[in-house]
């Protein structure tokens, strides 16, 4: 992928989507550029989480119109794992607990599924552990967390660090961070941001979904998109953050 500024890695085109009988996204359009950090901001109920669910193909969401083009292909009918294997990663707002499934075993299965898909050699246990240890330290994760059951009994901060660990190991191309900062103390926020910033390589794109601007002090956005009532109502540079803080979402003109 070149670094051409006009190139788009992900194009969300006039998407309509509903959850149950309720239409949430009402003609949402948004383009992600390679190597850029896009922040999505908006009031509660604007459709921020539905947007992330729609991109990764969550069962809850029914797309009723529009298209999603990823690397030039329509992915709207792809299975969730196909989207993941092709490099779309979602850091969940509320990572689910899966009892009895060893965290490291799970992650190695995930990493090897992706490597296999990309035609790379699978990592053996030793190679995998070596690789993972590098990131554990960076994220300030205790080494016993990898031998525990997946997210079971993890604190809010531990769950989010675990999401970022998975992101770093899976090396995705498009990273969606859904409220990554919610429930984090300052140390966890720093560690998580450090992990995210490490992943910036000029090619990867980030979609940072957030209610508050706090995380944007740590991960500098290139674009701010304001989402309201299921549509992007404004796109601007990072200077918009200060304006939003001062005047709130209501002051934004469509």
């Amino acid at each position, binding site marked *: 992928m070149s670094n051409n500024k006009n190139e788009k890695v992900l194009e969300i085109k006039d998407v309509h989507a509903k959850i149950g009988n309720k239409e949430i996204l009402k003609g949402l359009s948004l383009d992600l550029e390679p190597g850029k950090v896009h922040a999505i901001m908006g009031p509660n109920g604007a459709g921020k989480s539905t947007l992330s669910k729609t991109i990764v193909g969550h069962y809850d969401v029914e797309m009723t119109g529009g298209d999603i083009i990823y690397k030039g292909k329509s992915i709207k009918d792809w*299975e969730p794992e196909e989207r993941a294997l092709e490099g779309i990663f979602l850091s969940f707002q509320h990572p*689910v607990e899966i009892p009895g499934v060893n965290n490291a075993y799970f992650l190695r299965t995930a990493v090897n*599924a992706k490597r296999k898909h990309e035609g790379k050699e699978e990592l053996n246990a030793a190679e995998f552990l070596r690789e993972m240890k590098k990131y554990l330290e960076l994220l300030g994760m205790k080494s016993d967390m990898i031998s525990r059951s997946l997210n079971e009994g993890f604190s809010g901060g531990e769950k989010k660090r675990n999401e970022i660990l998975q992101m770093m190991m899976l090396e995705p191309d498009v990273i969606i961070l859904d409220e990554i900062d919610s429930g984090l103390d300052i140390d966890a926020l720093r560690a998580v941001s450090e992990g995210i910033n490490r992943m910036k390589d000029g090619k990867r794109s980030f979609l940072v979904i957030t209610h508050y601007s706090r995380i944007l002090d740590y991960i500098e956005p290139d674009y701010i998109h304001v989402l309201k009532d299921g549509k992007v109502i404004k796109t601007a540079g990072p200077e918009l953050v200060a304006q939003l803080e001062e005047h709130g979402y209501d002051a934004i003109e469509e």
Partner: protein
Amino acid sequence: MAQEEIDKAVSGEYTLGFEIDVETDVVPPGLNDDVIRFISKKKEEPEWMTELRLKAYHKWLKMEEPHWAHLHYDPIDYNSISYYAAPKTGGPESLDEVDPKILAAYEKLGISLEEQKQLAGVKVAVDAVVDSVSVKTTYQEELQKHGVIFCSISEAIRDYPELIQKYMFSVVPMTDNFFAALNSAVFTDGTFVYIPKGVRCPMELSTYFRINALNTGQFERTLIVADEGSYVSYNEGCSAPMRDENQLHAAVVELVAMKDAEIKYSTIQNWYPGDENGKGGIYNFVTKRGLCKGDNSKISWTQVETGSAITWKYPSCILKGDNSVGEFYSVAVTTLAQQADTGTKMIHLGKNTSSTIISKGISAMKGQNTYRGLVKIGASAEGARNYSECDSLLIGDQCGAHTFPYLESKDTKGQIEHEATTSKISDEQLFYLRQRCINEEDAVSMIVHGFCKEVFSQLPMEYAVEAKALLELTLEGSVG
């Protein structure tokens, strides 16, 4: 996720449903004194055994089939069943005399009756039972060097009458229940194990049961006696051909652990489950009970139940010796139209006795899974403790899970803890794993294995691998 996809997934094909094509001696269907005498004679049993069988039969005639379990099935016609079937070439002296077709069948089941061929590089002594007879018991000589007796129950009745007379019916009395009484009258083969004082059995012992003949029942009887300070780990496996009729399996297992002895009994039950409409499959009515007779003794039941149309089974422990320990670890899977009513009884009689119950029920498609367990603490069982954990996992929305725990405590200081959970494989869990590049089928399997982990970790290594593979096969394609 669409329901039909899940259903396709959880109706994994039964791969052991082939028939062994050997000539069989079968007694005509029906039961009377003559049939019992016939079985006893075929087994070359002494007169006392014949008399015991007849006594059990006459008592059984006056008993009624129990119907308190959460199971629904058509009435069993006990006169349409043949009570004895044997491969014509059964009961050989050496491997050369075993019908090659039976050897081939066992190879197909992944069980080698040749001693040099070992399971996963570990020596496992095997008693192979087809229908009503034991066809081969391996490693007998090597075990004899340690004083361990490992033979078919028929041989034991002939060769070790004093041990049989002392222990058979001592844990499960002949009239304990309807099915145990029937078994006492007509039991055909099974395994006998005796571990002498202070001996740690040098290898895993294993019995593999195969129902083969048409319209026959299988009524095996197993007796394991671990003398003072001894240890044995015993495993049983089973399978049957796919048939449209239901076949009855009514076994009895008795375990006796003397002072400081330990018995670890593992079961991988894979009888033919029938089809998705409930046609065919094995009716599995089994009585299993262990007696911790001496102080500091321990009996541990581990079962992985994936087969049978109907399962009625409660492996239990009577904790008579002081400080004795009883354990029950169970994974029961019901898919297709299978029904299982299974659990355990822990009867605390001795002081400071303790028991642990970990039960994991998995239901899919139209499967109905019931846990039924009794923890009873007698007046003399000072300081008794029990911990029970019963978890159910539902896959899809047509299946069911039911839990019936019974607690009876006469010792007010007894400590009983019971935890129960029912969960559904949630779409959130599945989606999480799929978002992490893991396909739906692997995701279901990962969640199910995680759910069963505590039980699988109790199985001997080789069998844990088998159990995992079996579970995978049973729930195959849990995804579209």
